[in-house]
């Protein structure tokens, strides 16, 4: 059926990039190739930005995997997604979706999309658990900002920071082996008599079932499933629409993987670090570069057995440990030099709390936005597939 019959649907929109809705065959093919190349270039540019962002003294770039950086990642994802939709759906004959290779690739993409939706939900829960950690840190800041710092403040800070460190360990502990528990207890916990009480306290924060996804749901497994069948198109297919579908699929997998690595969510043990994208693809270079950096960090963290890679959380852990040491060996009054050190660290802690306070809720909102956008796009794709006369629908 000619495209002009679809009045009122998105296909009836006139493209601003073309002069006519229905171009003649040779033109439309050239246009298509141009669109694809543009899409690839944009993707590559955006990821370059993330990998080595342009920075100057007045606005230092956001560290990798910080809250601000993740928000940029999500923004970029939304841009890519919008462009992808334009390339694939706008002004195209929907029956293309029913012909190979798209007849297989689009449903596969839609299945990946459903997994991404669950991951978004898990990530929102994860951000909540980061907020809990933030609140504990704020207690420590409140205690140690007081002058003079007395025994009371030191103990209060220590209690809060111990809970914080425990919480960061616990969150990854679901389903993990006893070995990691030992590791978790082996540092930062000298001589506190109320260890088990603390564990109970923080267990309440993190073991609460509503903080979790469905039983047996595993972020690591979801990512793994998403990256199955991720095979670059070859030969003639590579110049057609199979290419943007592959690119978008890869972006989906990468972005979800990165977010899962950074934000604590259910069952990340076994998160794969191998990225199935061939090195020779030019547009993928920045993405691969990012992925390698992050994967390296992940492997390091996995060995040490601590919580995710969110930059603020990592800094929090370091400062937290150091302040616990301070509180452990606390003697009133504190000598001036030591006090200066502590002051700097507490300021660092306060800064992290501020960044979290400013950034976590917007981050959550952005994840929700991604959720909605992805739902909407999926619905549009399903519409197109249905319109193209597929009465035997795929199982998504």
């Amino acid at each position, binding site marked *: 059926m000619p495209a002009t019959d679809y009045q009122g649907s998105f296909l009836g929109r006139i493209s601003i990039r073309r002069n006519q809705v229905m171009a003649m065959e040779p033109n439309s093919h050239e246009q298509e190739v141009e669109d694809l190349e543009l899409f690839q270039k944009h993707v590559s540019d955006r990821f370059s930005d993330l990998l080595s962002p342009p920075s100057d003294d007045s606005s230092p770039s956001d560290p990798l995997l910080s809250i601000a950086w993740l928000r940029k990642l999500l923004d970029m994802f939304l841009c890519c997604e919008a462009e992808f939709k334009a390339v694939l759906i706008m002004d195209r004959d929907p029956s293309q979706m029913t012909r190979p290779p798209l007849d297989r690739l689009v449903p596969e993409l839609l299945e990946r999309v459903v997994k991404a939706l669950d991951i978004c939900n898990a990530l929102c829960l994860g951000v909540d658990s980061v907020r809990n950690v933030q609140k504990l840190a704020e207690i420590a800041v409140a205690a140690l900002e007081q002058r003079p710092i007395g025994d*009371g403040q030191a103990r209060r800070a220590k209690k*809060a920071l111990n809970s914080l460190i425990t919480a960061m360990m616990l969150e990854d502990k679901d389903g993990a082996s006893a070995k990691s528990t030992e590791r978790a207890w082996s540092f930062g916990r000298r001589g506190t008599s109320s260890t088990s*009480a603390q564990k109970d306290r923080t267990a309440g924060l993190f073991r609460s079932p509503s903080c979790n996804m469905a039983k047996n749901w595993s972020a690591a497994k979801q990512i793994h499933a998403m990256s199955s069948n991720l095979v670059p198109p070859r030969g003639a297919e590579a110049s057609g629409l199979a290419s943007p579908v592959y690119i978008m699929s890869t972006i989906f997998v990468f972005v979800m993987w990165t977010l899962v690595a950074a934000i604590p969510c259910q069952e990340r043990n076994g998160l794969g670090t191998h990225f199935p994208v061939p090195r020779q693809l030019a547009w993928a270079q920045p993405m691969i570069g990012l992925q390698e950096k992050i994967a390296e960090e992940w492997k390091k963290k996995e060995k040490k057995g601590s919580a995710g890679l969110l930059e603020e959380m990592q800094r929090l852990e370091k400062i937290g440990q150091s302040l616990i040491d301070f509180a452990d060996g606390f003697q009133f009054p504190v000598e001036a030099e030591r006090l200066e050190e502590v002051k700097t660290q507490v300021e660092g802690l306060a800064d992290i709390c501020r960044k979290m306070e400013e950034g976590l809720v917007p981050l959550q909102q952005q994840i929700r936005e991604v959720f909605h956008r992805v739902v909407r796009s999926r619905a549009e794709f*399903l519409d197109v597939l249905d319109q193209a006369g597929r009465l035997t629908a795929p199982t*998504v």
Partner: protein
Amino acid sequence: MEPPPPENNNAAALPFETAEKIILRWDSTASEEAREKMIFQSDRQEVDRYLLAVDEIQRSMSSTSISDDHNKLNSALQIAMARLEDEFRNILISHTNPIEADSLMTTDPSSSSRSISSNTEVDDEGTIADEEEEEDDDAAAADAEGDGDASSVSKGNKLLRYHSGESISVSNSSSSYRSTSSIREIDLIPSDAVYDLRSIAERMISSGYLRECIQVYGSVRKSAVDASFRRLGIEKLSIGDVQRLEWDQLEAKIRRWIRAAKVCIRTLFSSEKKLCEQIFHGIGTAIDDACFMETVKGPAIQLFNFAEAISISRRSPEKLFKILDLHDALMDLIPDIDIVFDSKSSESIRIQAAEILSRLAEAARGILSEFENAVLREPSKTMNELIVSKPSTGSRYSGDPSTPDLDFTELEGKNPLAIHLIWIIVILQFNLEGKSKHYKDASLSHLFIMNNIHYIVQKVKGSPELRAMIGDDYLKKMAGKLQQAATSYQRATWVKVLSCLRDEGLHVSGGFSSGVSKSALRERFKSFNAMFEEVHRTQATWLIPDSQLREELRISISEKLIPAYRSFLGRFRSHIESGRHPENYIKYSVEDLEAAVLDFFEGHPVSQHLRKRSQ
């Protein structure tokens, strides 16, 4: 409440040293004894002394300036706060379980019975409970609208129905929202415990230990809410899970979700909010809000995630009604959601609920328009698909799969809205047919169809716009269906009764006036009496709400029954009356039967013995 005066000091305060001693005595990091006992489970005097001690420390802090002393005070304060935190947690934990199990199940505000011990069980996926609920709703609607429909047909009724329930007023809160009658809070913690919690909270917050307080509160109450969720049968399903399940399984889960969501919003969450207010109202700024969100945000999101997963599932025609159910239920709940989650920090929950609602509406619209397109393209194929589309169940579309009921040539030239409406009616009819099969008694299922078709026809006829859109042709079709159902009813009920009044089989020899088998005749009369009595007894309790239909059906029964009986009596009564005990066999006169027919379809049971007027 004034504490009892301490033995040797003035009534209002403790000297500092005493206060400090008390605090240190109860330092749980310092002594075994301090860990084993809880202050707030000891006698009241102990509690009051401790609180006084804390107050003294706090008071002293503001008046001391010497650094060493200040350090001591701080230290004591921290010990006190740590202790109070543990006490707070302990009080909360010891009041977590008992009340909820009973009240959650029994205070379902959507049940039309107002008593606390209502019988709306939150059970597993039986259709029985669902029909019970529907009947309750219908009864409520009947009371409200004065319309005696025993079987609600139009989904529109649900939209108009207003759930009424009681509200339990709060003693110390000034919120006006509790005048909304569908919200129903219960007291989760007894008031003396609330008082203790409040005493602790005041002191913790005024010492700057607000965060610790909120955290303890949130973690204990959140587990309590989670436990309630489990009891309500709220499952945690991922979107992937929901996509993979068969639609019938999802239907059952949706039903369960609707029931559970009502209890959650109207009772569970609202009660938690009330508790926060009871404990934290007036202490600090918006602390009750913070605690409430800490407690319910996670569970609320978990609750809505299921509805969200349903709203994004793939569209197909058989999902329409359950999606509409879910939509209607959520729409009913939105005002309550807006009230319970009225603070700024809970905005995201209100937004999520509204988003899910609009997605559900969109899904319903999408299914309708998809069907419209399909109908226009390939009418009979689509209808067949619709009919045959459920391979795993025979419940809904168990009609004849080979012949669609709708002649699609009639649809041409109609506007889309009209087609939608007709389609809805077609689906309703399929639905009704399926439901009618639930009746074991075939006559009753025909009556069910008659009632409902008649209702639809009346409604359409009563609205000029509807009538114009749907068209008289289709109305005629439906009238035809009504007639069919009436005929089926006649056949199912009366054929065997009337067969007692036949001539055949009564004559022994070929002769006409003599040679009637008396025994066969007596059997006939007995059978007729028994059958008629049975039918009379049963069908008097059946209801045809519409008086016109009721009248018409009775007349058509009479038209067959009365002449047949009269002629039978006329021909054969002499044979019976010439034998013994004729009254055992000829029990009723024609007038008796005429009177009895008037009992039919009134919806009231009748006394067993028919009035024998002619006696």
